[in-house]
């Protein structure tokens, strides 16, 4: 390997981020009942416990399929060096064996949780991924250099926006709480017989950390519920965002690129999903499909992909008209190639900014659906906690104020943080919005109508409202633009 070619900064990043990512992934799988008080050796043992929880088998099958498909596509286009191809194939094989081990080769379990040595597979994968990035950097030193430079530039602009930094801070705080939950509170405090107080709705007390937010209707610790809820709420929000963004962006680019009857037909379907009132729709789906978090994720994705699709479509319609697309077509590039290599990179900033806002929508939607009793009855999320508050009549009990406030404030902070980050990313993407320019102190909201893409921004605000009900699209304004 010709390591001398890699930009030194990329090398440093690989060395720093690989362990960080490994730790984060390990924390996701960490056993639920090994608090810090159980001793250093026991806690460290948790990282390599062979019976720790693991990813559902179907996600691993999906990952295998995705790896193989990208690999075949890249090999057909002769894009990759043989070394990178073999690394990706090795990753695919590792994931495949992992998925098989998960299910014992025969049993198909949507949430296979009985596997062993997940940490080992995971470690191998993380190392392979690091090697992959390394060899990519070695094979394309110029592009790696550009990537490093671009990332630093983006971070420099983002850093200048104090609102974005606050949002990032809030999000990091709650992510840390979610990841470190096993160390903060033992999961055993959530079981129905683990009451901390004899009475229901005990007021908060600072002598015992379990009683920081008081106790609930069964005398269980609200603090314990609060901490463990963050896992479900954030995870569901994140997963729903990934699916929404991939489906929405795909549909948007596709309908934008094929403007003929295919695009028109796709647009009609998108329109139908835009006008479906999301909450009644979600309630119907939840009532029919059942109640667990995989289904909630699916429901959020089904009800919110159309908003992303509409915004991405508007942008790809204008990108498609640019000269370099025509040039690409003239020299005989295929449609798939043009969409992947020319349109996708140009709508990418918009997709990223929109994805951050989608996290807000998804967290909001999860809270709402759980509040209506459509969540997983066996797990806690902030929405489920609020459902308990409402169902048990705790709103009428003054000592239960903290029980009502804590989960709500958490949701508000996370949603607010996502909106702040979205605003900051918009500034990075669109130089017109930056503070240094003539428009001082402007945010996305402030300049929505002034920007050339006014109608589009309005549409986005409409989409953002989704959580509350106005997943509105602006037929009128879009026509004007």
């Amino acid at each position, binding site marked *: 390997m010709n390591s001398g070619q890699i930009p030194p900064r990329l090398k440093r990043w690989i060395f720093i981020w690989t362990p960080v990512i490994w730790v984060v992934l390990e924390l996701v799988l960490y056993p639920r009942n090994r608090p810090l008080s159980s001793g250093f050796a026991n806690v460290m043992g948790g990282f390599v416990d062979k019976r720790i929880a693991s990813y559902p088998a179907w996600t691993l099958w999906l990952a295998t399929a995705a790896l193989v498909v990208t690999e075949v596509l890249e090999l057909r286009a002769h894009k990759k060096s043989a070394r990178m191809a073999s690394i990706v194939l090795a990753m695919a094989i590792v994931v495949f064996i992992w998925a098989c081990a998960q299910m014992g080769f025969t049993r198909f379990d949507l949430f296979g949780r009985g596997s062993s040595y997940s940490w080992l597979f995971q470690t191998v994968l993380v190392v392979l991924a690091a090697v992959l990035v390394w060899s990519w950097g070695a094979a394309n030193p110029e592009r790696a250099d550009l990537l490093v430079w671009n990332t630093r530039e983006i971070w420099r602009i983002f850093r200048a926006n104090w609102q974005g930094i606050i949002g990032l801070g809030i999000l990091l705080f709650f992510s840390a709480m979610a990841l470190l939950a096993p160390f903060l509170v033992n999961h055993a405090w959530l079981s129905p017989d683990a009451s901390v107080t004899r009475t229901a709705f005990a007021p908060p007390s600072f002598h015992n950390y379990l009683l920081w937010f008081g106790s609930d209707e069964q005398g269980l610790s609200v603090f314990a519920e609060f901490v463990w809820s963050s896992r479900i709420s954030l995870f569901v929000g994140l997963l729903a965002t990934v699916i929404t963004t991939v489906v929405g962006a795909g549909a948007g680019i596709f309908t934008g690129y094929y403007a003929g009857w295919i695009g028109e037909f796709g647009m009609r379907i998108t329109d139908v999903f835009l006008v479906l009132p999301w909450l009644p729709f979600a309630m119907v789906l939840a009532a029919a499909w059942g109640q667990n978090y995989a289904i909630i994720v699916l429901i959020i994705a089904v009800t919110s992909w159309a908003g992303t699709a509409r915004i991405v479509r508007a942008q790809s319609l204008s990108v498609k008209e640019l000269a370099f697309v025509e040039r690409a077509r003239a020299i005989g590039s295929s449609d798939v190639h043009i969409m992947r290599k020319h349109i996708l990179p140009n709508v990418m900033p918009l997709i990223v900014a929109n994805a951050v806002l989608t996290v807000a929508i998804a967290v909001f939607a999860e809270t709402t659906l759980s509040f209506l009793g459509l969540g997983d009855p066996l797990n806690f999320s902030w929405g489920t906690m609020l459902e308990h508050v409402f169902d048990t009549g705790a709103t009428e009990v003054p000592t239960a104020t903290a029980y009502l406030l804590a989960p709500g404030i958490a949701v508000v902070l996370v949603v607010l943080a996502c909106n702040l980050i979205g605003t900051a990313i918009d500034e990075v993407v669109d130089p017109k919005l930056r503070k240094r320019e003539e428009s001082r102190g402007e945010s996305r909201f402030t300049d*929505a109508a002034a920007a050339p893409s006014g109608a589009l921004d309005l549409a986005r605000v409409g989409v953002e409202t989704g959580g509350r009900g106005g997943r509105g699209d602006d037929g009128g304004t879009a026509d004007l633009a």
Partner: protein
Amino acid sequence: MDKRRYFTRKILNAVLTIILVAAFNFMLFRILPGNPARLLLPKGHYSTIAIAQQKKIFHLDKPLWEQFGYYWVDTAEGNFGNSYAQHEPVVQVVGRAIVPTLVLVGTGTLFATVIGIVVGVFAGWRRNGTFDIASTNLGMVLYSMPTFWVAMIFILYFSVKLGWFPSGRMLDVGVTYTSFIGKAGAFLHHLFLPALVFAITYAAEYELIMRSSITSVMKEDFILTARAKGVSDTRVLWGHVAPNAMLPSITLVMMNFGFVLSGAILVETVFNWPGLGLLSYNSMLERDYPVMQAVFLLASAAVILCNLIADIMYYYLDPRVKA
């Protein structure tokens, strides 16, 4: 664009979308797992006779494409079957719930619009002033709050702690009102909190839109002209800036009104307000599919209709469309 072509296009679009939504509604309730005849029956009533009867009502014994035909006829006739939770035709159950929802949502939207537009105008007029920064940040926070959570806090504070307002329902149970005025007063007393919650959460959104719209209008040349002519600040604001900036807000208000049911579900559930929202919540809990189907269709039609109205209003409000 010429008027007739614009209207025809918009109306055709709306009709087409309604047809697609109705078709989707048909599929939605027939691709659900399980036997549709069973889904349309309450739990524990799965007797063969009941199922056969249900199949006959919904033509489920016919092939799928024939069912599709019957579905259109039934929908056009308003035959959605019987609600099994309330043992009445669905049309009656839904019909009874429409007015309370319209009153609640209408009042809420009215307040939200007025508050949002006025605050937005002042915030946009003095950009980055104290009032602007305070109101915009407050708006962002309110905008991030779940409606039902605000509603619960209000109940805890205003009706439990202070006892100023009742915590739910449209009228008190077991009280007979002697005079019409007494009844109306009690109704308004009950209406206040839910409408306020509704107004607060939507006002934030309208304020943010109005503010951005004001800012963009203030950069226009005709504002400069007005100032050059020596028009006073107040007149520039209310005579030139505000009317021109109103357009996006009005459109948004109109379109949100279509999505009203989504918001109403949460507010009505918390306040036990007997409207469409509470009806859809209860029918979901009881798996009352006939009612769910009707409410879902109604809600989608409302969105499409409001979009159409917004488009038509646009034609009259914005001269650029006519050009």
